[in-house]
């Protein structure tokens, strides 16, 4: 079949992804097939990072990809790349799932989770070990400790910033600004422009 579209590391999709998604919005299944090839890996990676459970991650990743087909018409190329749009959707769905799934047993577990089991440093380590792209890892290292913790716990663990604040025992306002400052520093380090 068609070759997968190259997306390696680029902030915007490789050639054609944006255009392909526009075609998907018009019901082009072949275009969707190519979009799928380009985004399925990152989509699953994002979802898996947050959910961890492989079966559930696959299920959510599938939902995301179907939703991409259904809602493709909402994608506006002027507002960002198709890849950003897709992975933002994937991350949200994963976070939705982790928060709603946790809700049931949360009351008891929350204390334990926030109380530091597993040790929070391990969590960050574990997350970072999964990062395949050296550049992202290197750039994460340019953040202050608190910036890095805030950003990774929110993105890779799906924690709300209130939870991050609780976990790190810092004021809410501090976490808010660390998330922003951390992302700004990452943006500059990675050379992201949008």
């Amino acid at each position, binding site marked *: 079949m068609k070759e997968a579209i190259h997306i390696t590391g680029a902030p915007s999709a490789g050639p054609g992804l944006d255009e392909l998604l526009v075609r998907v919005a018009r019901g082009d299944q072949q275009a969707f097939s190519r979009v799928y090839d380009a985004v399925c890996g990152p989509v699953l990676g994002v979802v898996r990072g947050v959910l961890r459970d492989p079966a559930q991650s696959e299920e959510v990743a599938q939902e995301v990809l179907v939703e991409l087909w259904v809602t493709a018409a909402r994608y506006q190329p002027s507002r*960002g790349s198709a890849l950003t749009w897709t992975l933002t959707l994937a991350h949200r769905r994963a976070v939705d799932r982790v928060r709603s799934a946790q*809700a049931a047993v949360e*009351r008891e577990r929350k204390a334990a989770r926030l109380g530091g089991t597993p040790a929070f440093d391990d969590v960050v380590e574990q997350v970072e070990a999964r990062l395949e792209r050296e550049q*992202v890892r290197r750039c994460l290292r340019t953040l202050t400790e608190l910036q890095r913790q805030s950003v990774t716990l929110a993105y890779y663990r799906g924690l709300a910033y209130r939870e991050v604040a609780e976990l790190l025992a810092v004021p809410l306002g501090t976490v808010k600004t660390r998330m922003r400052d951390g992302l700004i520093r*990452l943006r500059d380090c990675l050379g992201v*422009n949008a």
Partner: protein
Amino acid sequence: MSAAAKGAAGRDAELHTLTGAYALNALGDRERVRFEQHLAVCPACAQEVRELGATAVRLGLASSEVPPSAMKSRVMARISAVRQEPPKVAAAEAGRIPPAVHRARPPARRRLAGFVLAACAAGLAALGGVAVVQQRAADEARAEAREAAELARRSTRALAEVLTAPDVRTRSTELGQGAAGTVALSRERDRAVFLASGLPRPDGGRVYQLWFADGDAMRPAGLLASTGGAEAFLMEGAVGRATGVGVTVEPAGGSPAPTSEPLGLLSFPSG
């Protein structure tokens, strides 16, 4: 610290610092809605959100995984069976001011995510004879956590607002198998609440979906996670010029347009 942010300028400055948390999906629901409203009037924030969002995506790309090959055939099979949203839906929504329970930003639409919609169902205070309705969300969405509680509180308030509106009108119908549906409509608030009782849980992971009837066209208005009891749902979206409400059974996640005959159709009371 931020001297309790006096006035709108202070609030805006405070909101502006949420760009990072927003890009990381780390805001609670209420804050997210507020922030999205702010985004609409703050081009600088919107630009920053775009950049930080693209940055967050790099974090995601860095953790890419290889999906099982069977996943593709499942997805391809599924997409050939679901209908896509027409482009005009996007245009219409872009210009709409988000109501409280409604997420405005295009990539953030949650209509298809059954579990989130289920979480929107909330316990609610009674209006006259309408009994307090016990909420039970779908399996995945068993409400508890602060997020859900916050959402429920807001949803409850929104429900109560409709049900206590001075111009509220109701209409009921049988939905088969002993189930009944009632719609409460407030033209003034431009919102409607659907009250269901005795709806059996649909089989095969399917869901009940609500629709606004705009003449002949059906507009999605949210999913019901029925548990057979009595439940109330704030219908998604504004009533607008809708002339009635329909209920259908749809595949998990809902459909952009009805795929089955309605269990029931209710015309709004006129006048």
